[in-house]
């Protein structure tokens, strides 16, 4: 798999003294959507935070387009083209939608590139254009999530990691968000996401990983995992 854009090898680590990851390996190739699923406590979000440098792994390495990036700060990774959308629809609530998007392009110096990115984001999420002068804190949950994703697109990153994009959204917005992720793939973005809504996430995924208790458990094409009853059993036991 030499065309991999990002590869994480055998990550071990977690918060402080507590290990959550006991050897997690993930990879994503250019143009793919890769989904990471697993029950709560499997270490999905922790793996993402470790990859983007919020957490430092105890062992293991992360390679992004041929360069080792283990433990590099998130703001520096963004400059290399690795964007991250944290869990929980995190936006700057007191800033307008437009300002939020501009902040997404903080690392981009050329105004022309910012304008182009803005146009792309507005095209993908027309609702953000409508609400561009509104304070982000007044948006609905789904709109905030779109804003968070749109903000990550502002640097035209080569890879976007999305942590639970559908978390806490109403079914209508869940559908919308997954539609948008599909559109993004068609537009040429490479995506890797952690999702709780496994069915939806697997349905759009090229490849998928299922984690359990900090270890890789299953791996394969999204549809294969979706059909596998063992995967379902991870969630509800029995």
């Amino acid at each position: 798999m030499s065309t991999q854009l990002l590869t994480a090898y055998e990550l071990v680590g977690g918060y402080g003294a507590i290990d959550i990851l006991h050897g997690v390996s993930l990879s994503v190739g250019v143009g793919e959507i890769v989904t990471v699923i697993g029950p709560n406590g499997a270490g999905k979000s922790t793996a993402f935070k470790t990859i983007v440098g919020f957490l430092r792994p105890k062992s293991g390495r992360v390679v992004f387009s041929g360069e080792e990036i283990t433990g590099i700060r998130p703001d520096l990774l963004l400059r290399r083209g690795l964007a991250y959308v944290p869990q929980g629809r995190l936006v700057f609530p007191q800033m307008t939608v437009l300002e939020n998007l501009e902040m997404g392009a903080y690392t981009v110096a050329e105004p022309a590139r910012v304008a182009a990115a803005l146009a792309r984001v507005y095209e993908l999420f027309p609702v953000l254009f409508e609400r561009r002068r509104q304070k982000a804190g007044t948006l609905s949950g789904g709109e905030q999530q779109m804003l968070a994703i749109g903000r990550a697109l502002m640097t035209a990153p080569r890879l976007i990691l999305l942590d639970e994009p559908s978390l806490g959204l109403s079914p209508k917005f869940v559908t919308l968000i997954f539609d948008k992720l599909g559109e993004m793939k068609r537009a040429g973005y490479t995506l890797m996401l952690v999702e709780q809504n496994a069915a939806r996430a697997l349905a759009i995924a090229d490849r998928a990983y299922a984690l359990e208790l900090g270890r890789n458990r299953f791996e394969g094409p999204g549809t294969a995992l979706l059909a596998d009853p063992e995967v379902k059993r991870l969630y509800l036991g029995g």
Partner: protein
Amino acid sequence: MASPPVLEIERLRKRFGGVTAVDGVSLRLEPARIYGLIGPNGSGKTTLFNCITGVERLDEGRVHFGGERVHGLRPWEIAQKGIGRTFQVIRVFPELSALENLLVVTRDRLAAARERALRLLRFVKLDGLRDEYAGNLSYGQQKLLEFVRVLMRDPALILLDEPAAGVNRTLLNDLLEAVRQLRDRGKTILLVEHDMKVVMGLCETVFVLDHGEKIAEGAPGVIQTDERVIEAYFGR
């Protein structure tokens, strides 16, 4: 006739800004039973715990404990009435020793409290570390300490927020056995847990929350096959 409920929650609602975290949930807990509370991330389980224990003020609805209204009371008043809880993120008192963590929560005579605390520490095999600062214990040990700290007050209702997370298998089995013993001694237990093996093996009744609403209630086997529950977890 069913015995009077230990805890009765009616149409509890809690909003944060524009988000309704708990949306009209009603629960009824009978004495001497083990209940599970499950649901995907963000479904409102911890918020419900916080509303029961007075950490959060509820917006609507009521909570009665042993027939007595407890909503609107301060957390310590609710705790003194006999509801004990653990936290999702461990909240032991890091610069108190393990023993002190237990002693501090009761007003019993010191000798009796000490004896009880030592017994509980022995029970979770922490007696050798009784003088260690709680903050220096391992994650699993802190978890156990937090568990026995709840028992110090001998509450009638025990709320456990993810008791199994981060605890190794052998200890976990002891812990589950302890929970069963508590039930046998007449305690009621409500636990939030993600480890489904634990939930299914331990709980007699399971409540399922999704988007702040109660979507199912029943025996574990029934819940496991409930379409709405599978959907909530696995998506559609």
